[in-house]
């Protein structure tokens, strides 16, 4: 663990940067020779992919008149050269079922009619033709079993992707073709994305390698981009390599991480129309290398030298901004990262540049004449909630905001860079409040240097987080497994990933996807049920058996798929042996009749995962291990998201028959497992005890075999797992995973226990659902419950746990708990109007906005608050307050609230099963709850009108002589009372000294004041509080007089 400001040191430890040479290392390695299309092979890893309507190119397939659809693939070669590859000739298409009587000869007529009608409804000016081709093909709808018979479909190819909707409208209204009657068409696959369609059809997956053989492509003579290699190719001429074997490699991608600082005004969040951008720090590294090779900072006004980095100072903001764009163009990053760059830094820079009319600024992408633009999108997903998101277009560069990665992949109490760094890197980061930033900027080269170091650290940390969490590998592998471009993984939800896989399978089986119109139905299907828990404290080993990959294996075992779903009419044509009836009352044909598509996808994913895990075991190279591990994780997540896709009612292709059947099977299996176990392991069958399933949930069952010996329990559990597995269809597999001993079962999804996988030593303490995961608990609850559980389960010290709990309660009531332990955080996800009732955090955010609009939390932020004492009868939502404000104003906290609303419930839940209800209750009443300390407000309220009266420190009588510490009676015991007060003083002094010297170390300077205001740092509130406490305790001690 490092806390010292080792960052400057880290910088110095990197290779020195010579200012005069610094800029020379910016560009990519030069091409040895210009590319020769007739002799050179171009091979690159594609990283970004988009499509445009562009000019046709001589010698390329497709239309001859503008506009034609062109796919642009951006990538990097193995030697680090950047590539732009224009792919020509791939036109969008969709399907409609051919109406009865439709003959191939009708195609021409159909094409003409549709084209005319579509031209009428389409309002694009440059469209000269809509429909390019109509073919009669044999396809089958994915939805439902149709006796394995293909049907005639019309495949309609159009000139531009956006024209599909015009055709759809026309077709749905109906057409009359030749001698056929007027017919309204049902459309298929009109809602698929062009990019995904292109990738699926060409077997291209995200981040894979593309090869262009000599003679099969053209080199652009007038390049449109800044890429070193720019070529045109027909879509039929490119070779796409599956990401296997050699082609798992990763090109030397350039990753830029940057951070900006703005000089805001006090109390107001920076606004691009007013507040200048004063610094931009940049770190560029090559993926796979440990240290960034470019480290620089662009500053407005001079800035003192920083060893190990380049300082570029500018006297005007426009020059600074434009120089930065030039820097981006030269260094040419493939991936742009940072912390919250998507929603803050990039839009801010764009808005600021627009305001200052820095015309050369917005060219951040790889295309020469394409200015970047900011657009706002609302992204809604079941898994991630609703977020408003901004997108800054930078063609050819993949944005990869680490904040978004972390918000997606990890549940944390706080997502600030400070707390994220503390969590993952074990490193506290100095946090300078934006109002101080302006002061530093207005100082001298020295103060700006301080700011620059801070800014550079904020640019460096995202790179370190990326390495530490192996984001790049995991996301790249996810892109490869699911087949979507990497940037989709952050900007899009789960569905597109499943859809991409589905499309690839459909193509092989001649299936077409119907267009599901979203009715937004809120149809609920029954979720996973649990076996009612037999609550209690179990002081004996409890074996846990788990179904591995439960939902995927159910879908495979029972052949659950769109393609196997039986309608009543189809079912009547079959004999009962040919189909399965699910517990949810749906029917699916057996795989002998038709193997399902989803089971096929799942089998592939799980087999691939098995291979990746096997390879991972063999692999020693850390780089390749990271790739493989990323892959096996991606495969696991993908397999599990298939079930979710079928259940997403707002999705592209929901099929509740599949999802509800899956969960119904799950429930049934848990029940069956219980019966099998409880029938077999009985005294009647010669076992020493009757086994009992005490709890079951989703994919696991917990069994009390009644034995005390861990070895015997584990053996029995393994045997039971095998025995039960035999009763299920493959690949359903019940596995013995772990034993809990002891085990405290509180309720559904709420339990704790020591987790054993071997008989020697427990692996860890496992606590589910008690308090740990829920974030609207204050940290005190988490610490208290965890410590009590440790004492109860590991140390088996009930008394110790009770005493500890009493101590914490007493400390709480005596106001001795650190305020950071009492902070509750809640996300501000909607505006005030959207919340049904009044909520503490929303009300506080409103109040804070009135006090200081700049520092007040905004949408999406987590609001930190404590509960304060308020007038009698005040509602809970009125009692929330900003912790900093509380410290400043010395506002008393409502400790009773914390005891009753935060501590008591979880405490009771863990102590009741062990001690019994009556005894457990004594925790919340009794001597330890009677000593309380009242804090009085520093100012405000009645205090303005009262005069402070000193009382005797010992007996609390009002002192006649206000200068003394003790009354006449107690003065005899002066030594005793003095020593008591002094011992408190020494404790506070030691704490004061340690806290403030720690902050100095962390900020990396002894001679400068600590400015940090990181609310996520565990010692931030402490530091502030100890200052106040010490001041007051020092006052108490001084009342004894100086003496001598």
């Amino acid at each position: 663990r490092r806390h010292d400001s080792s960052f400057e040191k880290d910088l110095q430890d990197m290779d020195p940067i010579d200012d005069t040479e610094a800029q020379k290392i910016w560009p990519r390695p030069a091409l040895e020779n210009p590319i020769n299309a007739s002799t050179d092979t171009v091979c690159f890893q594609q990283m970004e992919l988009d499509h445009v309507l562009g000019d046709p190119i001589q010698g390329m397939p497709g239309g001859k008149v503008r506009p034609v659809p062109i796919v642009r693939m951006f990538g990097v070669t193995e030697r680090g050269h950047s590539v732009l590859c224009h792919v020509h000739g791939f036109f969008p298409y969709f399907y409609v079922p051919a109406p009865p009587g439709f003959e191939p000869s009708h195609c021409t007529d159909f094409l003409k009619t549709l084209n005319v009608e579509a031209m009428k409804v389409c309002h694009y000016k440059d469209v000269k033709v809509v429909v390019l081709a109509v073919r009669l093909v044999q396809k089958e709808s994915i939805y439902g079993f149709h006796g394995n018979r293909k049907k005639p479909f019309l495949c309609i190819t159009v000139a531009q992707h956006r024209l599909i909707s015009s055709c759809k409208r026309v077709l749905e209204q109906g057409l009359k073709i030749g001698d056929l009657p007027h017919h309204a068409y049902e459309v298929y696959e009109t809602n698929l994305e062009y990019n995904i369609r292109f990738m699926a059809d060409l077997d291209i997956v995200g981040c894979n390698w593309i090869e262009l053989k000599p003679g099969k492509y053209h080199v652009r003579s007038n390049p449109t981009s800044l890429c070193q290699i720019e070529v045109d190719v027909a879509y039929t001429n490119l070779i796409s390599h599956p990401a296997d074997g050699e082609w798992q490699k990763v090109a030397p991608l350039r990753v830029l991480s940057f951070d900006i600082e703005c000089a805001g005004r006090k109390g107001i969040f920076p606004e691009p129309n007013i507040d200048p951008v004063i610094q931009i720090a940049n770190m560029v590294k090559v993926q796979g290398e440990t240290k960034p090779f470019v480290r620089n900072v662009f500053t407005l006004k001079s800035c003192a030298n920083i060893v190990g980095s380049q300082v570029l100072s500018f006297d005007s903001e426009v020059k600074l901004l434009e120089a930065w764009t030039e820097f981006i163009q030269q260094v040419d990053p493939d991936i742009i990262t940072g912390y919250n760059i998507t929603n803050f830094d990039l839009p801010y820079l764009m808005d600021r540049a627009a305001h200052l009319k820095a015309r050369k600024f917005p060219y951040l992408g790889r295309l020469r004449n394409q200015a970047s633009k900011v657009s706002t999108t609302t992204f809604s997903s079941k898994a991630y909630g609703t977020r408003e998101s901004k997108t800054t277009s930078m063609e050819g560069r993949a944005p990869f905001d680490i904040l978004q990665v972390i918000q997606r992949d990890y549940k944390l109490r706080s997502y600030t860079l400070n707390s994220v760094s503390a969590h993952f890197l074990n490193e506290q980061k100095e946090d300078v409040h934006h109002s101080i930033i302006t002061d530093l900027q207005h100082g001298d080269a020295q103060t700006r240097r301080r700011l620059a170091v801070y800014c550079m650290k904020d640019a460096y940390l995202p790179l370190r987080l990326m390495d530490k969490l192996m984001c790049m590998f995991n996301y790249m592998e996810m892109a490869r497994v699911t087949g979507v471009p990497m940037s989709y993984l952050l900007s899009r939800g789960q569905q597109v990933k499943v859809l991409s896989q589905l499309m690839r399978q459909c193509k092989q089986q001649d299936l077409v996807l119907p267009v599901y119109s979203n009715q937004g139905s809120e149809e609920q299907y029954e979720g996973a049920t649990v076996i009612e828990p037999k609550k209690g404290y179990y002081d004996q080993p409890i074996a846990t058996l788990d179904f591995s990959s439960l939902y995927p294996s159910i879908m495979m075992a029972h052949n659950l798929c769109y393609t196997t779903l039986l309608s009543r009419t189809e079912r009547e044509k079959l004999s009962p042996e040919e189909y399965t009836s699910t517990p949810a009352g749906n029917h699916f044909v057996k795989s002998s009749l038709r193997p399902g598509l989803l089971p096929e996808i799942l089998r592939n994913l799980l087999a691939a995962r098995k291979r990746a895990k096997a390879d991972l075991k063999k692999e020693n190279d850390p780089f390749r291990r990271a790739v493989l591990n990323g892959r096996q994780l991606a495969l696991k997540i993908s397999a599990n998201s298939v079930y979710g896709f079928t259940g997403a009612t707002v999705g592209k292709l929901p099929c509740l028959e599949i999802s509800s059947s899956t969960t119904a099977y799950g429930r049934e299996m848990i029940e069956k497992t219980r019966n099998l176990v409880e029938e077999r392991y009985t005294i009647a069958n010669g076992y020493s005890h009757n086994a009992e399933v005490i709890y079951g949930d989703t994919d696991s069952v917990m069994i009390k075999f009644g034995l005390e010996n861990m070895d015997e329990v584990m053996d029995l559990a393994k045997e039971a797992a095998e025995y039960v597995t035999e009763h299920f269809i493959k690949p359903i597999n019940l596995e013995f995973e772990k034993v809990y001993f002891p085990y405290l079962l509180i309720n559904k999804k709420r339990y704790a226990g020591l987790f054993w996988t071997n008989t020697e030593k427990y692996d860890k303490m496992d606590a589910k659902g008690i308090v740990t995961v829920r974030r609207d608990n204050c940290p005190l609850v988490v610490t208290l419950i965890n410590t009590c559980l440790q004492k109860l389960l590991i140390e088996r010290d009930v008394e110790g746990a009770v005493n500890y709990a009493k101590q914490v309660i007493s400390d709480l009531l005596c106001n001795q708990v650190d305020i950071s332990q009492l902070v509750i955080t809640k996300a501000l996800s909607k505006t005030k109007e959207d919340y049904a009732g009044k909520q503490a955090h929303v009300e506080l955010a409103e109040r804070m906005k009135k006090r200081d609009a700049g520092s007040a939390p905004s949408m999406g932020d987590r609001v930190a608050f404590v509960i304060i004492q308020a007038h009698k009868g005040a509602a809970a939502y009125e009692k929330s307050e900003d912790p900093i404000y509380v410290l400043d104003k010395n506002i008393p906290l409502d400790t009773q609230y914390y005891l009753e609303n935060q501590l008591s419930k979880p405490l009771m839940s863990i102590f009741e099963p062990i001690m019994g209800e009556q005894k457990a209750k004594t925790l919340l009443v009794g001597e330890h709850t009677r000593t309380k300390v009242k804090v009085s407000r520093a100012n405000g309220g009645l205090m303005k009108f009262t005069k402070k009266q000193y009382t005797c420190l010992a007996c609390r009588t009002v002192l006649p002589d206000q200068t003394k510490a003790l009354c006449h009676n107690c003065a005899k015991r002066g030594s005793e009372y003095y020593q008591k007060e002094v011992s408190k003083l020494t404790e506070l002094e030691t704490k004061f000294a340690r806290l403030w010297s720690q902050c100095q170390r962390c900020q990396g300077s002894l001679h400068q004041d600590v400015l940090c205001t990181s609310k996520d740092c565990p010692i931030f509130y402490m530091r502030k509080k100890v200052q106040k406490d010490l001041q007051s305790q020092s006052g108490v001690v001084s009342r004894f007089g100086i003496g001598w």
Partner: protein
Amino acid sequence: DDGIALFSSPNQEMIGDDAKVPTPLERTTVPYEDLSDRFILKKTEFHNQYSHLYYQRLHSMKSLIQKVARDKWCHGDNIPKYVDKLLNIKPGQRCFIVGTVYKDMQAKPNILDEHHAREHYEAPPPSRSKYVEPDDSLVLEDQTGRVNLACPPKLINELVTGVVMSVLGKENAAGEFEVEDSCFSGLGPQTPLQDPPDAFVCLTSGFGVSVDAEALLPLQLMVDFIIGQLGTANVHSQVQKIARMIVAGNLISETKNDQVYQAKYITKKQTAQSVELVKQLDDVLVQLASSIPTDIMPGPNDPSNATVPQQPLHQCMFPKAASLETLGGKSNPYACSVGGVTFLGTSGQGVDDIFRFSTTQDRLQILESTLNWKHLFPTAPDTQACFPYFDVDPFIIEDCPHVYFAGNQPKFGTKLVKGPDNQICRLILLPSFNVAHQIVLLNLRTLDCECITFDGTTDL
């Protein structure tokens, strides 16, 4: 054997009973002056940060150390340039600079680690006798910035955070300052001794009064010796010459200050563990101060504040002894002049702290270094808790004392140091009395010192 007989009969009745003390000794008196005013806190405010203390330290030592550096390095052909701000160092240029040392140590105890451990219910990081690690490194800092020092391991090992020094060298390509030579402020000016009286000052520390009655025997023996209740007439004539006694801290043994770790409903009725011990101490001090002017300094175990400077032990704790004018409650650090001989000393925290954060084993060497660095507590406030001074660093050793001591050390040690300007300084490591049963008698005339042991074997 006299010693053993005396040992076995500590006259308990005598303790605390003035009437029974026999004829007092005719004790030599010498002029005395308390010079500790700068260590007395006039107002106690805690809103300042520590940066001011470092600033004052560097600021007030800078010109002095610059002069030492010039004298040392600025002659001959290759005269190095003085660079006033670390920021202005030019790569490759040979120069000398002045700054505050920051020693980057991975093993340094850290309140964040302890906090983390507490939250995760782990054992706190174990405390160590030394926190040095092979990869410790030095940084030199002033208000303008920091520079990493590439220097011999010896320097890294011996130095600690907070020392102000000058280094000669140049910045290399890696941006480090390659140290060729280094220097410190050295000893301050000193008024030469002018015919000091033929008398002794008794220096001791670590009475460590505890609940263990047996442990009190050597202490009582020592008290009897000082007040003239032991030994022959010959001994008495010697004892008469002891003009003053200085007790450098830890008058009582360590008590656990666990109130803070206990719930208030438990501690409400408790009294500090030290109360009983201080009562006993009061009895000891009555005996001593009735016979000899006695200065008591607080130490880390005593009920005074924890940060340096520790303020005098409050007289309300000594209902008996405090009424005697001869008992003086003093600060830690403590400075005084006895018969024209200047004393400066601490209860030992400075030496102990430097011991933990340097590889130096020789504590006498550490004590000498602090004199050379011109600072009593260089590691304050980094690892030594310290009051947040704003406009002064009172711990700078402006003038070189004649006697410089540190209390509560494991072993007695002494050395006479001579400065370039004829300064002489007697360094003394005072052993903890409750461990070594030793006191030190310093001859004011010769600055020689002798150590007397009260373990029953000493021939008195």
